[in-house]
């Protein structure tokens, strides 16, 4: 017979992963709910998921590649933009959609106990599905442009996972702070927009002048995007600075996210 002890918690404790595993069916149904709600009342359904990254990618490719003739390291500009958009949407859509998830589900959180982490995780489910559809589109594009396979492609899952985890860490911060200050709901899209410009998504980092490159590479998402791009298209691997700042950003955001989330989690039902 299981014994549950209820006591005030004091110190930082790690998530009870065991419990999350126990509730994995809930995670499944909640994600399913989010995914279905997203597409249930649309008649085009999955077409939107394909169009969302593809249309902007084509526009940027024409504008920057054909008209402005920005460098693309010898790759088709469309492919360069598209390989940037996949990890970036994974990262930014996670924050965008799951960031408000705690506030959005406050009716559940204040009435039923379950591992709180399930809520942001479930909200990320639809982002992952979108990402998978994006990957399939990428495969089609790669075939159309005749890009060959290479060993570097084995690194792609690693960069996608990094994008997911970095997004998770920041999501936890944003979702938690949203509970206290709804200002974050407004600040986050704005911040993501700015971050977007500082990340080589629609352009290549080879555009950055040499003396600014180090500073530029400190942005953790630079390594994320250029890393994924390299793993798909090959070419020059990312610099050590880019890689290290990506790893630092990844671990840092996860740790901060967990700490903030736990702190908020305790008092959550008393606030909302």
């Amino acid at each position: 017979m299981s014994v549950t002890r209820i006591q005030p918690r004091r110190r930082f404790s790690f998530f009870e992963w065991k419990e999350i595993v126990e509730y994995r069916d809930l995670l499944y149904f909640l994600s399913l709910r989010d995914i279905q709600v997203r597409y249930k009342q649309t008649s085009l359904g999955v077409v939107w998921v394909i169009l969302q990254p593809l249309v902007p990618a084509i526009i940027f490719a024409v504008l920057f590649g054909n008209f402005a003739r920005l460098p693309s390291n010898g790759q088709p500009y469309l492919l360069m933009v598209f390989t940037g958009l996949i990890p970036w949407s994974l990262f930014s859509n996670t924050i965008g959609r799951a960031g408000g998830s705690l506030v959005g589900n406050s009716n559940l959180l204040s009435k039923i106990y379950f591992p709180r982490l399930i809520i942001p995780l479930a909200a990320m489910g639809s982002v992952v599905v979108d990402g998978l559809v994006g990957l399939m589109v990428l495969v089609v594009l790669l075939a159309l442009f005749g890009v060959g396979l290479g060993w570097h492609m084995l690194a792609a899952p690693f960069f996608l996972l990094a994008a997911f985890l970095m997004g998770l860490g920041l999501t936890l911060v944003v979702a938690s702070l949203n509970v206290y200050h709804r200002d974050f709901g407004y600040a986050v899209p704005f911040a993501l927009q700015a971050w977007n410009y500082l990340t080589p998504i629609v352009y290549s980092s080879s555009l950055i002048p040499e003396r600014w490159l180090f500073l530029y590479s400190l942005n953790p998402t630079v390594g994320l995007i250029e890393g994924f791009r390299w793993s798909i298209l090959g070419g020059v691997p990312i610099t050590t600075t880019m890689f290290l700042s990506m790893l630092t950003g990844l671990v840092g955001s996860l740790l901060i996210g967990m700490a903030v989330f736990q702190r908020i989690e305790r008092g959550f039902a008393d606030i909302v």
Partner: protein
Amino acid sequence: MSESSDIAITVRSLGKSYKIGHLETVAADDTSAGGAPQRGIWPWRRTGGRQRLSSETFWALRDVDFDVPRGKVFGVIGRNGAGKSTLLKILSRITEPSTGMAEIRGRVGSLLEVGTGFHPEFSGRENIYLNGTLLGMRRRQIDRVFDAIVDFAEVHRFIDTPVKRYSSGMYVRLAFAVAAHLEPDILIIDEVLAVGDLQFQKKCLGKMKDVTGQGRTVLFVSHSLTTVNSLCDTCMLLENGRVTQIGPTESVTASYFASSEETSGSSLDLRSDPPGDRFCRMVGARMVDRSGESLSYAHIDREFGLEMTYELLEPSTGQVIPNFHFFTAGQCAFITSPRQESPVTLGRHRATVWLPARFLNEGTYSVNFAATTPMPQCCHFHVQDQFCFQVIEDLHDEARHGAVHKVPGAVRPQLNWSLH
């Protein structure tokens, strides 16, 4: 520790405090106001200077100790704000306690509000799975009890219809059905029986009895003393966040009535400032039985009296006639006054009206007391909203025909019937 296996829930000096913060602007030299500066979630934003956060600690629950034996139905009663919901929220782990501890042996299913987590766009089937997993069930477990849930909720034909098209009755039935088939060792329930029609209430009650029959433990919070009385073996009374009594349900509910007397209650003492004019003043009122003993509540099966004490100070031009106005649910139920001549001698008098058994319905009544003289028309006093009393009834009473909730109506007289 051998006996601890017979205890399902142990609670020791459990407390929950809330900080009620007031952000107040104080003069720069005024250091006396407010407590120590509080840190919010911004560690770097300390409050200082002109604004400071003074906080006051409010204990929603304090030093609560009790044990719930396995297989028993344990009731928790208390007025609004007594800490009942806080206790349930702690035990179902929605919120954390500030002090003390609780130990729960077995799987807990909590039913704080039925239908939480239902999504209107989804079909009944989808919602059963979503809601079931939300309450801690595994998918396979739900597969097993799926048919039983649908049977219980009586929604066979609509199981693939979005629940937004359900009637509110169907919605509630489905929600309760999911929760009732959780198969937890310990069930925490807050007022669920207040839903659905009469027949469904009976079914829920039956299900709850099944649950305890199988050795499960139920923690039950309710405002309906009638339901508590019939369902719970043991009962706990919470007042202002503290446990004031634990014991057999009947004696605890009785003293709950007695305690509610202080504030709103069924005796009224106006001696310090008696209302009235120069002819007549009201001194007090109470509820009595035939032997003249004070009652704290009335039982539907027993006759009781309402006694008003008043003083005649000066000879009046006419008779001083006491009259009592009975209100329930905001409506005047009836007004009554004596037919015989009222006493005219100066000094104290008592006027008592006798309410027969099986006349008033169960529930709360408030009484306004007045004394009037008809010729010339004159009202000596009219004491409003200061006296109320409760009529209770045993839930097992035959006359209820199994109704779990309050039978509607201001009165419930036992009338004569002819049946052919």
